[in-house]
Structure formats: C-alpha cells, structure tokens
C-alpha cells in the first residue's frame, strides 16, 4: 500500500519534471543574463541572488537591477515593480480557481512560485488537478523552475559573460516559443480559443504605448478573458 502511494507520487513528480523542462531551458540563459546585468549594475552576488530568491519575477528583476544601476530611488523601483507584476494577481486568481479543491497548505506554496511561465504550463495541464497526488505534479513544475532561476542568476553573477552574446540573445526567444507551444494545441482542439488570444494580443499591442508594458499585459489578459465569457461554450474548456 505504502509502496503504491510512493510510486504514484513518483509518477506525478516525473511528469511535472517533463512538463516543466521547457521552462528550465528558457529560464537558465535569461537568469544568467540577469546575473551578469545585476553584477554590472553594482549589486553583490549575495544581493543579486537574494533578489532572485525573494522576488522571483524575471522582467521586474531586469528592470530593478537596471534602475539600481541608474541610481533610481527605492520608491520608484518598488512602484514600478508593483505595476509590472500586478498581472500575477489575475493569473493567480485563475490558477487558484483551477485548484480549488487543494488545501491552503498546498495552494500557498504553489502561488508563491507563480510566474507567467509556471502559470502557463500549469493551466494548460489541467487534468492533473484530479489525479491522486496531482499537487506533486504542479509542485515539481514550480520547484524546478524556481531552482533553475535562482541557480542561473547565481551562475550569471559568478561567471560573468560566459555565453556568447549572439547565443544568449537568440535564447531570448525560448519562452515565447514555449508560450506558442502551449497555446497552439489548445487552439487545435478548440478553435475559439484563438479568438481569446488574438483579442488579448491586439488589446495589449494597442494600449501598451499609452499605459506601459505591465498594465498592457494586465488589461489585455482581463479583456481577452472577458471575450471568452461570450464566445466559449459550456463544457468545452
């Protein structure tokens, strides 16, 4: 009996590792690039790794390190971070709704590790919520992503510019390709999903010049999702 439980858990952990591996491929080069930039901005190894451990939000860390380098005030940096990361609230709302049946002691560590990437992967793999020990599946995705981000930042800070610029720049496409790779199978299964995404893209594209990248993604996501209320049929999502 105990043996069976353990093997069920092991299967969920293995599947979570496989599902999370595109995130690791995407995170490591970006985290290294962050480490390099933060070091150049004058942050110590301890500080730049600490930021990855405590903040764990890529775009805002690039921005924060950059602003520290420019000598911006703490208040400016913190407000800009809030604006850029507020989208996590919307994502977390959707994520927690998906795992409603999990107790708070599972929900809390899971949402703490919520990023654009861990959210995207977890919300496309919906079935696991109903699997026995499915929380181990999501937990593995989140933990491996977190560790690859933290270790990658540390590497960037220690080694400096180790990856040739052309390669690290090219690897910047990895997370976008992952988002596309997650979205397309859903579109294939149910074409109306494409309408939601395209609405969100267009709204983001149109409003970003006026309200900035952070709010652009928030507004695009909220309104694109709202389009879904009208066009999705029951039981199809």
């Amino acid at each position, binding site marked *: 009996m105990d043996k069976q439980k353990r093997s069920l858990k092991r299967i969920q952990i293995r599947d979570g590792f496989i599902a999370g591996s*595109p995130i690791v*491929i*995407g995170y490591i080069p970006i985290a290294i690039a962050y480490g390099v930039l933060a070091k150049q901005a004058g942050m110590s190894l301890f*500080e730049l790794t600490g930021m990855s451990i*405590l*903040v*764990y*939000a890529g775009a*805002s860390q690039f921005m*924060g390190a950059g602003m*520290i380098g420019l000598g911006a005030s*703490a208040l400016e940096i*913190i407000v800009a*971070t*809030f604006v850029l990361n507020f*989208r996590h*609230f*919307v*994502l*977390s*709302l*959707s994520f*927690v*709704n*998906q795992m*409603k049946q999990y107790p*708070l002691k599972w*929900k809390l560590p899971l*949402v703490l590790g919520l990023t*654009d990437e861990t959210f*995207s992967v977890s*919300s496309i793999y919906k079935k696991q919520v109903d699997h026995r020990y499915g929380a181990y599946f999501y937990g593995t995705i989140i933990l491996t992503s977190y560790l690859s981000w933290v270790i990658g930042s540390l590497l960037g800070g220690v080694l400096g510019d180790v990856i040739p610029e052309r390669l690290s*720049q*090219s*690897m*910047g*496409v*990895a997370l*976008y*390709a992952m*988002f*596309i*790779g997650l*979205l*397309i199978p859903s579109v294939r299964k149910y074409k109306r*999903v494409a309408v939601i*995404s395209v609405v*969100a*893209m267009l709204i983001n594209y149109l409003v970003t010049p006026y309200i900035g990248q952070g709010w*652009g*993604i928030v507004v695009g*996501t909220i*309104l*694109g*999702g*709202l*389009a*879904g*209320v009208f066009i*999705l049929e029951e039981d199809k999502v």
Partner: protein
Amino acid sequence: MIWVIIIGMALVTIIPRIIPAFIVDLIHFPEWVNKWLKAIPYAALGALIFPGILSVIPDKPFVGLVAGVAAILLAWFRVHIIFVVLLSILTVVVLTISVG
C-alpha cells in the same frame, strides 16, 4: 539600501500572488466569472506572446516574427514542445548570423 529595494520588490510581488489563495474559498463566483477565469490562460498567453516576441532581437522585429511563425507551424504539426523551443532558438541564431 539595496536590501530595502529587494524586500520592497518582494512584498509588492508576493502580495498580489497570494491574495487569491485566501479569497477564492470565501467567495462563490457566479458562472460567468468561472468562465472568465478559465479563459484567462489563453488570454494571458496571447498578451505574453505579442508584441513582446517582436523585441527578441532589438531593432529587428522580423526575426522574432519569423521564429514565432516557425513555432506556430511546428506546434500545429504536433512537434513536441521541447523541440518547438529548440528549433525556434535555432531559427533566431540562423537569422541573426545570415542577416548580420
């Protein structure tokens, strides 16, 4: 000073992340809100992909665009996501080398 910034950044990032964990159990959402929340992943993916992908190589938006179209085609023909990611990286490497 840097630690004040880091801790401030951490707080304003973590608080919006965790609030939903506490409120989803307390509020019973009407059906349309549940539908909205189910549509959020697809909307978020859209907003995260575009127009951000155009800035993969600054000043060369077509590089990101071509890599994105390549990723769409690969994913459409059921190529595994890992290879979608790796082949998109390769596309960008080849394009930046050949266009300079």
